[in-house]
């Protein structure tokens, strides 16, 4: 077992030379955007380091088994998280009736958290943080598959300053997914949408998230 873990840890980063994206990589760039980027936000508000990491993880399907082993989370959930965060493009509202399609805007800290999970170097607190992120990122696309937008582009979902606000009449997949930052009450915000989350508990390995999605969709009449 120790040998297997050592072997896996060794592969975690050193064994992925084939998946590293080199500078100048343009295969997925979007020529319709001003900076030719593949991410939402057109190259502003994120670092090249984060963008490179997201592209690398996008091509690193082998990460899923490593992350699942190192965090104790269901591999299906991990792969769903990877697909949502790094692999799939999304329609992202950036203003009233304004939607950009692209990969999620990269974030250095999310990339570092994923890489730490793949290497098996996260502290127990960081594993807990990763678990909360995984729950959110796995559930979000389940809601989108059921027809909800990532977030609403309805004008009511933006305030007079143009900032995105949560509006009870326009829930999006992101809004209904478990709140990563309230791990003790990840579904408390459902009541804003008239949904009952009493008694809902996520399994330690997050294996019951599909059931939780069904409960929410039923509550929404879908």
């Amino acid at each position: 077992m120790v040998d297997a873990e050592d072997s896996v840890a060794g592969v975690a980063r050193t064994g992925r030379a084939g998946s590293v994206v080199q500078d100048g990589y343009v295969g997925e760039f979007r020529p319709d955007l001003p900076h030719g980027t593949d991410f939402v936000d057109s190259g502003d508000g994120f670092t090249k380091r984060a963008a490179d990491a997201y592209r690398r993880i996008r091509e690193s399907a082998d990460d899923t088994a490593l992350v699942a082993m190192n965090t104790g989370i269901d591999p299906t959930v991990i792969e769903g998280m990877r697909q949502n965060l790094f692999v799939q493009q999304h329609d992202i509202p950036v203003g009233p009736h304004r939607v950009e399609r692209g990969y999620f805007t990269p974030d250095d800290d999310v990339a570092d958290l994923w890489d730490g999970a793949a290497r098996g170097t996260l502290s127990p607190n960081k594993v807990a943080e990763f678990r909360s992120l995984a729950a959110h990122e796995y559930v979000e696309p389940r809601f989108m598959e059921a027809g909800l937008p990532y977030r609403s582009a309805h004008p009511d979902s933006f305030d007079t300053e143009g900032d995105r606000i949560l509006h009870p009449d326009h829930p999006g997949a992101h809004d209904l997914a478990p709140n990563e930052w309230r791990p003790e009450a990840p579904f408390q915000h459902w009541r804003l949408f008239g949904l009952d989350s009493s008694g809902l508990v996520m399994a330690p390995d997050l294996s019951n998230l599909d059931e939780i999605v069904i409960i929410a969709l039923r509550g929404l009449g879908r």
Partner: protein
Amino acid sequence: MTPDEAVQEMAERLSAIDWERRGDQAWSKAALVKEYFRRAARWAATYGCDSPVPFFDIAACVDSAVRADQRVVDDVLEKVDAGGRNVARIVPFILQWAALSASAGIEIPADLQDPFEPLLLLFERGGGFHIENGEVNLEWKSVRMAGWRDRADDPPIASFATDVLDEIDRAGSIAQFGYVMGPSD
């Protein structure tokens, strides 16, 4: 005050923050985030800082020779762990700024202000924030990071007074939800 004393004083402020997430102050925090963007954009423009993101080591851009004691930084990072991954990235920048601003020979241009004071106030109101998909998320309201440099010429925040910030939250909550949110909402 020496740079070490300033760093220690800032360490104590940061270590005293309650990081439990709350959304009832989302509206004042959004105003404070925008004020931080405004100030950071002005520092970036004046000193030619090339950071693509608004949260960066402004002190290093101004004078990279002045650094906070790494042992103090590490100690504070342990104490702010509950703030999450984004807070852990930003807190060292605040400590580095404390060291720089107390250094002899550092003169802050008259048209620039302490960049991190809005963030400190935001944190001290409780709960912090997180960054997701290019936005600063404050629970019920989010501020996009893209275009942060364009805020350099925005009007400054009217006041940091608690009653003013509380009124921003009261009005924002009523406009958005029709009632005043509480800390546990």
